[in-house]
């Protein structure tokens, strides 16, 4: 007999029933087949941090080489691979995935639902990401890593000037991350629009959810451009098409347009989730709603839209018509307006709230100071005449590390500290965390601030060495020393995480007295997230006096409550897919197809057939609401 949760079915009995329905099988098979968004999200986060570490090691190697002029430590060939790998790893394997990973873990909890939408697709997305990343790094260790930069400009990345498999490896890695990111985006959009707790109308959604909604739509619109670009590149290299070959009527600039139409939104795909982190942290530690909620939403949406109108500012030196450049200057300048308004709203929230100076809020302060510098140097490079001097110099290296590390990694480390108790049940160590903020902040600026000057003094990017006597020597040495100290601060952070995982102070359900729904259930949350689906009556549901719930979901089947997209009225009950290992096997088949197509175009054909096998089993029709005697449906 099916039972539903409700007043007469709650507490331990309900817990036991829901745990039986929602838990994974024990052991390796359960580990492999899990579709629990929290387990997948945790894996995603850990993997992304491993890639952060690897990318960081590459950065240190580069700084070691550049510490002295005319250093012979690393050869030109190796250096070019290292900087290509650093960019590719940090952008495609760390920054974008880690933001999606946090969303995969947090969004269903924040929305008050029991599971992410399309949980198997979510598992598939993780495996594809993992296999893609491992593939790239194995290739690098086998000396077939990318060599033409993370941007792979043609014709340098084309068949004539990058013979061998190195650039194919790069282009195929892009395919992996595209698939993973698009899958994640679709799940998150659906979860946010259709699985919000009843009453959580769009205008009551936490700002983090707004950030993720905008980011996910940006992924959906930006990724196809790079998919097209990398497919053209692969077919130029593999089957002799001539999309980018000017001597055969192709165009070298076509690549840049397609790449930056994706590449510029990409940096906002990294930055906007960080904006969400900052909003949640600021709200919790100021103990008030973020000032100017509608402004914040408009700011995020307008950044998301403007981000698609800026790509040509990466191409000011390519000799396109000047009247066209003016529009991109204006659009690039304009994005400082929503950015500036956001900075004001966060600061105003702290100003008018009753701030508790815990570590995450200090990360927000480090973020504001650093990001504003990066934003203002961004205003400089938006100007055509200035950009012609600054473009492709170390000034730009300084600029984008200010916006990416200051604008995304500092909030991310704040977010880790903030949600660590939710993930693990324990708080991170203090006062180590606070010292860590200060140490990271100072060493970051020691590393990257001098690069502004190095660039103005004429040092171009992506050079494996530089001559003595051009005034760059001591600045580079300072940057290198700073880089090692900054790496030590990140290591300290990792150390704190590992230590706190087993020895940290136990956290209750809501150690920070936060307002959003993910803090409602114990830490870490049970496999079914919520015993009863909460009903939301304000933007800060956990600060409300009464916390109503809506009963009525079945407990012996995986069932979700689906609500309407705008107002979040209860609408339907829908089934959620149980654990299943076919996504894993589908990911393996996809990986084989992708790898094969580096070597032969026929792999697209037989690879599709190969992929069809696990997909057929994955999608084998069954009625998921039909109760089954046991878990799993293999």
């Amino acid at each position: 007999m099916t039972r539903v949760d409700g007043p007469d079915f709650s507490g331990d009995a309900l817990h036991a029933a829901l745990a039986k329905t929602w838990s994974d099988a024990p052991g390796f098979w359960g580990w492999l087949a899990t579709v629990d968004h929290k387990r997948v999200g945790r894996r995603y986060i850990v993997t992304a941090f491993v890639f952060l570490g690897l990318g960081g090691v590459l950065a240190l190697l580069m700084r070691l080489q550049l510490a002295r002029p005319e250093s012979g430590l690393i050869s030109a060939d190796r250096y070019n691979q290292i900087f290509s790998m650093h960019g590719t790893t940090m952008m495609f394997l760390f920054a974008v995935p880690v933001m999606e990973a946090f969303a995969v873990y947090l969004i269903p909890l924040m929305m008050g639902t029991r599971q992410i939408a399309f949980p198997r697709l979510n598992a598939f997305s993780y495996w594809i990401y993992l296999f893609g990343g491992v593939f790239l790094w194995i290739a690098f260790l086998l000396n077939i890593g990318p060599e033409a930069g993370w941007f792979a400009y043609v014709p340098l990345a084309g068949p004539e000037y990058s013979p061998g498999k190195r650039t194919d490896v790069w282009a195929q890695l892009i395919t992996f991350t595209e698939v993973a990111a698009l899958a994640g985006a679709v799940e998150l959009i659906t979860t946010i629009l259709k699985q919000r707790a009843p009453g959580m109308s769009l205008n009551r959604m936490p700002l983090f959810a707004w950030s993720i909604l905008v980011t996910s739509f940006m992924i959906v619109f930006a990724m196809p451009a790079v998919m097209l670009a990398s497919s053209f590149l692969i077919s130029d290299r593999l089957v002799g098409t001539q999309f980018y070959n000017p001597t055969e009527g192709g165009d070298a600039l076509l690549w840049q347009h397609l790449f930056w139409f994706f590449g510029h939104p990409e940096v906002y795909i990294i930055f906007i989730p960080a904006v969400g982190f900052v909003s949640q942290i600021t709200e919790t530690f100021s103990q008030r709603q973020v000032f100017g909620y509608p402004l914040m939403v408009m700011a995020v949406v307008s950044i998301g839209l403007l981000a698609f109108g800026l790509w040509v500012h990466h191409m000011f030196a390519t000799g396109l018509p000047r009247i066209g450049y003016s529009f991109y200057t204006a659009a690039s300048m304009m994005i400082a307006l929503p950015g500036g308004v956001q900075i004001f709203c966060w600061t105003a929230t702290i100003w008018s709230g009753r701030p508790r100076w815990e570590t995450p809020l200090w990360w927000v302060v480090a973020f504001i100071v650093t990001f504003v510098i990066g934003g203002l140097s961004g205003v400089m490079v938006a100007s055509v005449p200035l950009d012609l001097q600054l473009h492709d110099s170390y000034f730009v290296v300084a600029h984008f590390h200010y916006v990416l590390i200051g604008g995304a990694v500092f909030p991310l480390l704040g977010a880790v500290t903030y949600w660590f108790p939710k993930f693990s049940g324990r708080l991170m160590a203090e006062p180590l965390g606070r010292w860590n903020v200060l140490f990271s902040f100072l060493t970051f600026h020691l590393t990257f601030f001098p690069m502004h000057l190095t660039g103005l003094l004429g040092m171009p990017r992506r050079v494996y060495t530089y001559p003595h006597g051009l005034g760059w020597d001591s600045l580079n040495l300072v940057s290198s020393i700073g880089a090692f100290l900054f790496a030590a601060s990140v290591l300290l952070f990792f150390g704190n995480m590992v230590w706190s995982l087993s020895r940290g102070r136990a956290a209750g359900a809501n150690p920070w007295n936060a307002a959003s729904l993910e803090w409602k259930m114990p830490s870490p949350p049970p496999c079914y997230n919520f015993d009863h689906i909460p009903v939301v009556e304000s933007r800060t549901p956990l600060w409300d006096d009464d916390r109503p719930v809506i009963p009525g979901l079945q407990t012996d089947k995986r069932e979700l409550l689906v609500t309407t997209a705008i107002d979040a009225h209860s609408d339907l009950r829908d089934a959620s897919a149980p654990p299943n290992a076919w996504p894993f096997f589908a990911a393996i088949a996809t990986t084989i197809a992708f790898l094969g197509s580096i070597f032969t175009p026929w792999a697209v054909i037989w690879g599709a057939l190969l992929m069809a096998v696990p997909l057929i089993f994955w999608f084998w029709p069954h009625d998921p609401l039909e109760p089954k005697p046991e878990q799993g449906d293999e």
Partner: protein
Amino acid sequence: MSPIQSALHPAGAHAAATATLFQIFLGVTGFFFLLVLLFLGWAILRRDRGTASDKRLRLTVAAWAMLITVGLFGLTLASYATDRSLFFAGHDQKPLRLKVTAQQWWWEVRYNGATPAQTITTANEIHLPLGRPAQIELEADDVIHSLWIPNLVGKEDLIPGRTTDLQLLPRQVGRFRAQCAEFCGLQHAHMALDVVVDTPEQFAAWEARSLQPAPAPRSEAQKRGHAIVTGMHCSGCHAITGTDAFGTVGPDLTRVASRATLAAGELPNARAWLTRWIADPQAIKPGNRMPRIPLTPAQRSDVVAYLETLK
């Protein structure tokens, strides 16, 4: 000595205007940064909590948004104005026209005359007359490169299949260093060139000298060197006007001894370096297109003796 590769030490009209624009941007953005810091500092240190209403903040955020808009508008206008004035800089004079063709990893520089005999071809070194605008046509043979002479002007890409151009107006005599700014492969770091701004008289003298064919070898060693250079491997890739060497793969050597550097700005042009370069170019600049030529030390010294006469 002031830096020879720096956007902060302008020696040309474009770089000077850009440096001024940079100061304007620095001032305005610095002002905004200061405001953010002050507000943030106040938010951190504020004592009397919980008294303010959001109404005051709403007014302030509106004012802040207005202020940002005005600031951005001003900066955008300043940027347009600079861009426009640079576009017309020196338009009242007839510009010197030259053409730079980039390849992995060196620059061919050509001053086209009315006839081939009046055309100067050189490499990795640009001579410009002071005070006269120059219009440089830019092309690339293989991959995308970017020409950046920070003391004189911002960069412009050289793109295969397209022709771009760069205008500049030197305002100071001197020797400046330019470098490729777009990643162009293995030896991107070693793709520099010298830009020499001469007085009009010096430039005219250089032009006249450069139009002469290469001087004939005089000493025995020079003659032996000449025979090796024109008869053996070198002439397949290099050209020397007035001899049988007219290869186009590598830099033109007609005036090689007059240039300050070798291998696109990598080595000083001195006998020891030239000898080492000829002995094993791949050891010095791995991946470049010059192979190791099997010459005895005596032959090498003859070749160097001859090349040193090409001034």
